[in-house]
């Protein structure tokens, strides 16, 4: 794109005066030229950690005259290493977003019509507390559900545990990472967590399956990805779209969407058949190799070719590249993996492939992470409750779900979907459900069934418009939060500190949770003065120096061995204590003990329709950042990626605006420009998620581009853990010009 295309003249009153200042009679050249300093260095620099996404990079926030001028990476922080992604660098765009929620609000009209009255915190919290107590008295604590995303949600989760509700859901599980965690846990006895224990920087062969590093900007992963490129790693990218990662790869395998498991099985076939696997490792650590090698015999590259579209020769050569680099071959587990409803099994196949290559616990594969242990804050203990979460009709459904399914809680709100409607009220913290849960119409339906809906958010997202009470939260730069002590390469603790006081009448999440707790008779769960005192108590209990923490933002722990060869213990927390290539647990539950591939289950797009795929732009964290003026300047609205041949057939010009309509006749609310490109298969289209926003008060992004989630009216649920496979919708084009003429 030519840069001029996104340059627009802003409205600045001062422009004229400055020009007039130049119209004097001086001969300019005779004066010395000073070096102009933009003066953005802070008079204070506060270390903290980021919340523009959920990676939690260490930052240094510069504050000048009470204003945050810029945000840098904290060089002492093991996740940022002093560098940031664009979102982290653009955090001030959130802090100073003119559309921020400013005061608590209470609804004065029916849901969906955004008629609110600004009220005091006391009044707003009073309404919330009254409803929480009423719900509990009338229906039990389990009738109140929490949806949460983001680190500040920890306070709300604590409130809910104290209140006694088991219905604490995060869309980051069943709509995102869940199948991967379950698939790896079934195989290695532990998931990969977040941040993932992938040793990308030391990989000599890196395999990315739909994982678009570089567009998905998890900072440390991308830093490590660049190291892998510099080190000359063999990179194999499997993606229907020529992603940025694909452009950095030696091999790009433009796979037919939905057939990844077939490719993975064929790779296993070659790796076992040609003896490329790590014999010693498998013998020592793995269970079920005999069954696996028998199982994959039929899945030859020739078998996989007509299914995946990847030529047998390419499958063999890439398998050999993986074998040659082992154990420093990392088949990346991905992150957003809820695609086709068979996602746990696909993740299992990825895990098994890694096991064959001996990469778990090995340099260039998966390191063994460690953690600084900090004692929990001493509370009286959560109230006992034997209430099951309401997200499934029976506990035997999705038996390996180890977190609450967000879509299940939503369904349990509508009478007749999951038994009788057990959920009567929601609190929604930082998760914009209409663009997060598949099939927004269903979400709206559930919302209309609610007795009460309270939202805690920073911006007037779609969900805010449907709420009965809106509580404006302070941004991550205006609050102290729970300590962050991740399982990582270098164990460490980080603290989020208040960089500037909360703007407007916004309040930090800990304060909101505590004030609500007090009002509903749970003061013993909130004995601390504030989150700073809370964090201090925990740090002191761990014997860590709070002054160092305040000054540095992080404290490093003792490094532990990262790899088996360095002394990390080869412990696998499966039932057999081994890496389970064959899973007795899955077999006992009636699932395939080893991944299989059923091509007949793959639905083909109807004539004139294309599979809808979605992903990320590097400057955005879904819809959370698209209203950020700094970030969206670089990527103002999404475009619909259309293969060049398809565009020619349709006569679509690059930049021409289209609406998308799916197989169920659902049309996108807004249009987006077409990007005519060779970088995508002819049977799929692609959009960046987070656009096409319908919330009118998000003034910068409202109506810009297309919301893929609106078009996800169908999804396939993973029978093992309840993840919602969302890449199963097909769309066709409607020319914006035609529609406008017709109307």
């Amino acid at each position, binding site marked *: 794109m*030519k*840069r001029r295309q996104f*340059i627009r003249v*802003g409205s*600045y009153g*001062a*422009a*004229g005066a*400055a*020009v007039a200042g*130049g*119209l004097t009679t001086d001969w*300019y*050249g*005779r*004066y010395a*030229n*000073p*070096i*102009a*300093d*933009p*003066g*953005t260095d802070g008079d204070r620099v506060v270390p903290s950690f980021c919340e523009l996404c959920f990676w939690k990079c260490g930052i240094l926030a510069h504050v000048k005259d009470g204003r945050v*001028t*810029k*945000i*840098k*990476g904290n060089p002492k922080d093991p996740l940022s290493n002093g*560098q*940031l*992604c*664009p979102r*982290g*660098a653009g955090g*001030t765009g959130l802090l100073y977003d003119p559309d921020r929620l400013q005061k608590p609000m209470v609804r004065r009209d029916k849901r969906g019509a955004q008629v609110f009255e600004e009220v005091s915190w006391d009044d707003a919290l009073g309404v919330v507390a009254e409803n929480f107590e009423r719900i509990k008295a009338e229906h039990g604590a389990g009738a109140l559900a929490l949806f949460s995303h983001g680190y500040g949600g920890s306070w709300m989760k604590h409130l809910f545990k104290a209140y006694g509700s088991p219905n604490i859901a995060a869309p980051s599980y069943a709509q995102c990472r869940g199948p991967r965690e379950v698939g790896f846990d079934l195989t290695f006895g532990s998931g990969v967590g977040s941040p993932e224990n992938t040793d990308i920087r030391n990989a000599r062969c890196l395999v990315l399956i739909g994982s678009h590093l*570089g567009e998905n*900007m998890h900072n440390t992963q*991308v*830093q490590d*990805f*660049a190291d892998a490129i510099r080190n000359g790693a063999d990179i194999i990218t499997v993606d229907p779209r*020529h992603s*940025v990662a*694909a*452009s*950095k790869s030696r091999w*790009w395998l*433009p796979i037919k969407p939905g057939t990844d498991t077939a490719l993975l099985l064929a790779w296993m076939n070659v790796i076992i058949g040609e003896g490329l696997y790590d014999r010693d490792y498998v013998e020592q650590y793995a269970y079920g190799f005999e069954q696996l090698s028998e199982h994959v015999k039929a899945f030859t590259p020739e078998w996989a070719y007509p299914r995946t579209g990847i030529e047998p020769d390419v499958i063999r050569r890439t398998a050999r590249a993986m074998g040659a680099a082992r154990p420093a071959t990392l088949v990346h587990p991905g992150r957003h993996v809820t695609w086709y409803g068979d996602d746990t099994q696909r993740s299992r196949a990825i895990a098994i492939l890694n096991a064959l290559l001996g990469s778990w616990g090995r340099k260039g594969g998966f390191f063994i992470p460690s953690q600084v242990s900090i004692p929990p804050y001493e509370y009286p203990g959560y109230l006992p409750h034997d209430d099951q979460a309401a997200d499934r009709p029976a506990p035997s459904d999705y038996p390996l779900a180890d977190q609450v399914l967000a879509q299940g809680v939503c369904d349990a709100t509508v009478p007749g979907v999951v038994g009788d409607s057990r959920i009567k009220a929601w609190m929604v913290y930082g998760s914009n459900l209409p663009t997060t849960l598949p099939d927004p119409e269903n979400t709206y339906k559930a919302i209309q069934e609610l007795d009460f809906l309270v939202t805690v958010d920073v911006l007037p997202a779609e969900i805010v418009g449907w709420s009965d009470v809106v509580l404006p939260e302070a941004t991550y730069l205006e609050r102290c939060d729970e300590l962050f002590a991740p399982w990582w390469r270098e164990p460490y603790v980080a603290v989020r500190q208040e960089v500037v006081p909360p703007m407007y009448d916004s309040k930090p999440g800990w304060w909101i949770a505590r004030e609500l707790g007090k009002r509903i008779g749970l003061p013993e769960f909130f004995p601390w003065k504030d989150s700073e005192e809370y964090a201090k108590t925990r740090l002191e209990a761990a014997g860590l120096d709070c002054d160092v923490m305040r000054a540095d933002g992080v404290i490093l722990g003792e490094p532990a061995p990262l790899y088996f060869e360095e002394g990390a213990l080869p412990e696998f927390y499966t039932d057999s204590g081994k890496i389970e290539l064959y899973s007795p647990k899955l077999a006992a539950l009636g699932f395939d003990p080893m991944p299989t591939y059923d091509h007949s289950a793959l639905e083909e797009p109807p004539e004139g329709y294309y599979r809808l795929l979605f992903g990320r732009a*590097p*400057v955005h964290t879904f819809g959370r950042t698209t209203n950020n*003026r*700094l970030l969206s*300047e*670089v*990527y103002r609205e999404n475009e619909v990626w259309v*293969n060049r041949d398809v565009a020619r057939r349709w006569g679509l010009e690059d930049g021409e605006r289209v609406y998308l309509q799916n197989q169920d006749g659902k049309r996108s609310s807004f249009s987006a420009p077409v990007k005519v490109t*060779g*970088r*995508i298969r002819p049977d799929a289209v692609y959009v960046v998620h987070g656009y096409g926003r319908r919330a009118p008060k998000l003034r910068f992004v409202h109506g810009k581009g297309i919301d893929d989630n609106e078009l996800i009216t169908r999804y396939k649920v993973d029978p093992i853990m309840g993840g919602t496979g969302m890449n199963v919708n097909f769309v066709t084009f409607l020319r914006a010009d035609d529609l406008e003429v017709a109307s």
Partner: protein
Amino acid sequence: MSAVSYGMVVDTRTCVACAACVIACKTENDVAEGFSRDWIFTATSGSFPNLEMEIRSERCNHCEDAPCVSVCPTGASHYGPGGTVQVTESKCTGCKACIAACPYDARFIDPRTGAIDKCTFCVHRVENGTPTTACQEVCPTKSIYFGDLNDPESEVSRLLRTRQAYALLPDAGTRPKHFFLK
């Protein structure tokens, strides 16, 4: 040649087009809303499925023979420290002759001042003890290198010696000091 000559080298192999450089520059230099001093350029060649893509983080080339300097009627555009090309806001009349002269489309009018704005190679940092530019400092893939092209020991000199590199529009004859590694 012993005087310092600042130059920049961007590694197109590792750059992922994330635009962290654009955002960091905007906040470091308080760039006007709607404008940026650096930008991402991507070029795709070939057709499905045989594609190549090149990604560049681009900005003012700080040319040694800069047409923006020679065309400036007031001396606002000038050669600053380390042979960088700078603009003195108070001398700029906003006549835009330099915008027309620049082959790299690197300049724009800051609507707040009416004067020309563009990349300074963060000269306020480099001349005051911070050896990095903001774009270089933030870059998560460490694809941006900045330093003295006249110092054979500098990272930029070493990269230009050891890696295949190119400048944009060499035929424009402006002797750019911004290079890209293949």
